C-alpha cells in the first residue's frame, strides 16, 4: 500500500489536511503575535538604541556592536569559558539525568521511588541567590567538603578561588541542582517503551545491563537526541544567576562568561543594543548547531529530531 506515488489528493486526504491546519492554527496565531511581531526588535542590534528615541528613532549603527564584541581583549577567553561551562553542564547533566532515570525506574519500592523522585526534583526550584550561600559554606576553605578532604588526608581544594577548579564547581553544582528535574523527561521516555520488548529480551537471556543497552537506551534515543539538540542551542549561555552569585575577580580568568560580562557592561551604560547583538549571535550559533545536529541525526540514524 505504501510507496504508491499517488499524486491525487483525494477529498478525504484534503479534508484531513484541513484538520491538521486547524490543529495548528490557534497555536500559530499566538506564535505570530507574540514571537514574530516582537522580532522586529532585533534591529536594535544594528542601532545605537537610546530608549528615549525608541525603536524607530534610534540611529543606525550597522555592525558596530558585533565588531566591538569581537575585538574585546578578553572575548576569546570569555567565549571559551562560556562554552566550556555550558558543554560541561550539558554533557554531565545529561549523563547523570539519564543514569538516574534508568536507576530510579528499577526501584520497586513505590514509596521510596516517589519520595526520592520528589526530593531530587526540588533543588531545581531553589534560586541561586539562596543556594549560593549554601555552596560557599559547603565548598569554602573551611567548609564541610574541605573538612572531609583533610580528614581523609588530602589537601584542601580552593573551589571558589582557584581558576582551575572553579568551572568544575560551577558545572558540578549545576548538575546536582538540575539532574532531578531533567530526569523527568527521560523517565517519561523510559515508561513509554513497550514492556513487551523488555520481556522479549529477558526471555532471550539478556542480563540487566544488556537490557539497558539494547532496549532502554535505544528506546530513549529520540528523546536523548532531542534534548542534546535543544541543549546545544544554548551553548553560549552558561547561566547568569549561578555564576554571578558565586564568582569573584579572582576567578574571572575561567569564570567570567558572556552573560556576566554583558551584565557588567549594561551597568555602566544601558547597553540594550549591545545586549541584543550578543543575543543575536547566540541565536545564530544555536541555529547552526541545531541544524547540524538535525542533519547529522538524519544521516546516522533514520529519523530526524524535528
Amino acid at each position, binding site marked *: 500500500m505504501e510507496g504508491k506515488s499517488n499524486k491525487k489528493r483525494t477529498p478525504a486526504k484534503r479534508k484531513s489536511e484541513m484538520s491538521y491546519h486547524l490543529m495548528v492554527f490557534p497555536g500559530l496565531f499566538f506564535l505570530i503575535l507574540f514571537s514574530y511581531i*516582537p522580532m522586529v526588535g532585533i534591529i536594535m542590534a544594528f542601532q545605537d538604541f537610546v530608549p*528615549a528615541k*525608541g*525603536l524607530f528613532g534610534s540611529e543606525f549603527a550597522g555592525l558596530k556592536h558585533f565588531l566591538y564584541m569581537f575585538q574585546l581583549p578578553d572575548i576569546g577567553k570569555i567565549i571559551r569559558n562560556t562554552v566550556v561551562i555550558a558543554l560541561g553542564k550539558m554533557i554531565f547533566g545529561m549523563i547523570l539525568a539519564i543514569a538516574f532515570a534508568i536507576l530510579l525506574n528499577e526501584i520497586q519500592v513505590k514509596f521510596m521511588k516517589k519520595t526520592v523522585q520528589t526530593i531530587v526534583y526540588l533543588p531545581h526550584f531553589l534560586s541561586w541567590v539562596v543556594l549560593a550561600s549554601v555552596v560557599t559554606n559547603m565548598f569554602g*576553605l573551611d567548609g564541610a567538603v574541605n573538612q572531609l578532604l583533610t580528614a581523609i588526608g588530602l589537601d584542601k581544594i580552593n573551589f571558589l578561588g582557584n581558576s582551575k577548579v572553579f568551572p568544575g564547581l560551577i558545572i558540578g553544582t549545576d548538575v546536582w541542582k538540575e539532574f532531578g528535574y531533567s530526569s523527568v523527561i527521560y523517565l517519561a521516555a523510559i515508561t513509554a517503551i513497550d514492556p513487551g520488548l523488555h520481556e522479549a529480551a529477558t526471555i532471550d537471556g539478556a542480563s540487566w545491563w544488556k537490557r539497558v543497552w539494547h532496549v532502554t537506551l535505544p528506546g530513549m534515543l529520540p528523546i536523548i537526541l532531542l534534548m542534546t539538540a535543544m541543549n546545544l542551542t544554548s551553548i553560549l549561555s552558561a547561566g547568569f544567576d549561578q555564576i554571578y552569585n558565586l564568582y569573584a*575577580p*579572582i576567578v574571572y580568568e575561567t569564570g567570567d562568561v558572556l552573560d556576566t560580562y554583558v551584565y557588567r557592561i549594561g551597568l555602566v551604560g*544601558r547597553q*540594550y543594543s549591545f545586549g541584543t547583538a550578543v543575543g543575536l549571535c547566540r541565536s545564530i550559533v544555536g541555529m547552526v548547531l541545531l541544524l547540524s545536529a538535525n542533519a547529522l541525526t538524519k544521516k546516522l540514524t533514520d529519523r530526524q529530531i524535528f
Partner: protein
Amino acid sequence: MRKSFLIKLTGIAAAASLLLAATACTSQDASSDVGNAGSTLSDTSSERGTIKVSIGRQTLQNVAFPDGDTYEDNAYTRMAEKELDIDITNEFEANGDDYNRQVSLALSAGDIPDMMKVGSLDELKELYENDLIADLTEVYEEYASDYLKSLYDSYEGRAIANVTLDGKMMALPGTNVDSGPSIVWIRSDWMKQLGLTLDEDQDKCITIEDLEMVAKEFMDKNPENADNVVGIAFAPWLTSGDPDGIFSMNSIVYALGAFPKTWMEKEGTVIYGSTTEEMKQALAVVSGWFQNGILDPQVGIRTWDDITALLANGQCGITFGAWHIPDWLLNNVYALNNNAVFEAYTLVDANGKVNCKHNDATAGYIVVSKDFSHPEIAIQIANLFYDSIVNSKEILENYPEVVDYITNGVDGSSRPFNIEVNSYTSLLDDYDDLERCLNGEITVEEVKTSEQRSNAISISAYLEGNADATGWSKYHSRLIGVELIQTLTENDQYSWLTPIFSQTTPTMETNFANLEKLEEETFIKIVTGDIDVESGFDQFVTSWYEQGGAQIIKEISEQLK
C-alpha cells in the same frame, strides 16, 4: 512553496513594524490638565481645578504601611493632594534597579509620566537631549521657598550645577551628603582586655603601623578563643569608588594619598586614581600583610556575608566602613555578643591629614515631562516635603497622620518624590543637636528632627546602662561614628578632593566594564602574591591605557573644557 513562504514572512514583518511604529508615535494623552486650558503659571489652585499628576515611583521593598495605605495613597500623598489640589496616580512603581528598567521601558514606548525620578545623570541627559522634559529654571526661581533654595545652595553650587544643562535647570536634584571617610572600627572591649591603647591624643587618628600592631595582637591573643582568627578582612573587590567603602582597603589607600576608582586632576591632567604610584604603594602594603598573615588568607573569596560572619563570631575585631554601619551591619555582632563595643578611628597620611573625597553632590533626580502644563507643582511638592514638614508647625498640626508616619519611621520612599534634600551640613547639625541634648544643654523636644529625637532617647538609655540593640547601634553610629567626623572637621584635619568627573563618556559605556575587570583582577592577584607588585602594577597601567583608558581620559578632558 518557498516563494509563498517568503511572501508570508515579509508580510508579517511589515505588519509587525507598522504595529509597533503606530504606537511609538502616539504619545500619552494629556492626563494632566482637567481645569482651564488657559491657566498661567501664577494661577491659584481654586481657579485651575484639581490637576491630575502621574508619577513614576521608585519604591522600597516591603515598607510597612499602616492601615491599608499604599504607595499611591498614603498620609504623604494625601497631604500633597489636599495642600496643592492635585490628584496623584502612580504610573508605575518598582524597587531599586527594577525601577530603572521600568523607566527605560516607558521611554522606549514613547510615553513618560508627568513626573518621575531618574537615577543617573546619564538618564537625565538622555531625556534632555531628546527634548522630553521641562525646563525648571523659571519655576524654581519663582516657586522654590527660600529654605529649599538654601538647602541646595549649601553645596556651593555643585548640586544645581549637576542638573544644569546648557544653562537650564532640567531637574530637581536629590542631595547626597558627604559621608566621611572609611572609618576603622576596632573592638575596644578587646583592646581593654589586652591592655592596648591607641590614639592617646584623642584626635581619632591612627597610623597604618598602629593598625598593623592591633591586628597582630588580636590574632595572637585571640580574645574570644575563636577558631580561625583573621586579622583584617577585605571584600573581593578590594577598593570602592565610595570614600566610605565598606570592607574595603580605601582607608589605607587614602592614607597613602591615592583615590581609587576616581577621576582626578593631577598636575594639570586628568588621571584615574587607581593607576597612580600611590595606589601601587597601597597594594604593596596590603600584599605585605597577606605575606605575613595579617590579611585574611581567604581574601578574594571571602564574601560580604562571610566577613559579616567573621565579625559576628568574634573571629575578627577590625573592620572598615561608613559611620552608619553599626545600624545595619555591626548590629549582627551585638546580637551574638552583648559585650562587644567598637571604637572609631581613621588613618592619617604622612602629613597628619585625613584624605577624603567629596561625594557627588546629587543622587536621584526628579524630572517633569515637557507636556505637563503645571511644572510649578513639582516645586511646590518639594517645598512641602523638604521645607514645610521640617519647619512648619502648622502643617504638622493639620496633618496628624503625617506626624504619625514620622514618629513611626515609615520609610521616606512613601513620599511622592523619593529623594533626599538635606543641607550639606545636616549630618553634623544633627550631631550637634544630639551632643547638646546628651549634655543637658537642650531638652529632647528641642532636638530638631524627630529621627534624632528618638536617637537621643535610645542613646541616653544605653549610656545609663539600659542597653538594647537600637541603643547600641545608635550609640555607635550617631555618637561614635559621627563624632569622628565632627572631630576631624573641628580640627580641620580633612584634606578634601573633589573628583573632576563623575558621569560617563561614550568610550566608558563600551570599555569601562572591561577596565574595571582588569583592575579588580590585577589587584587581587597582586595582593595574594600571584603576580609581583612592581611589574604587575606597571603592566596593569600600560594595559589600562591601551584598552580604552587613554581614550576615555581624552573624552573627559574634552567635556571639561
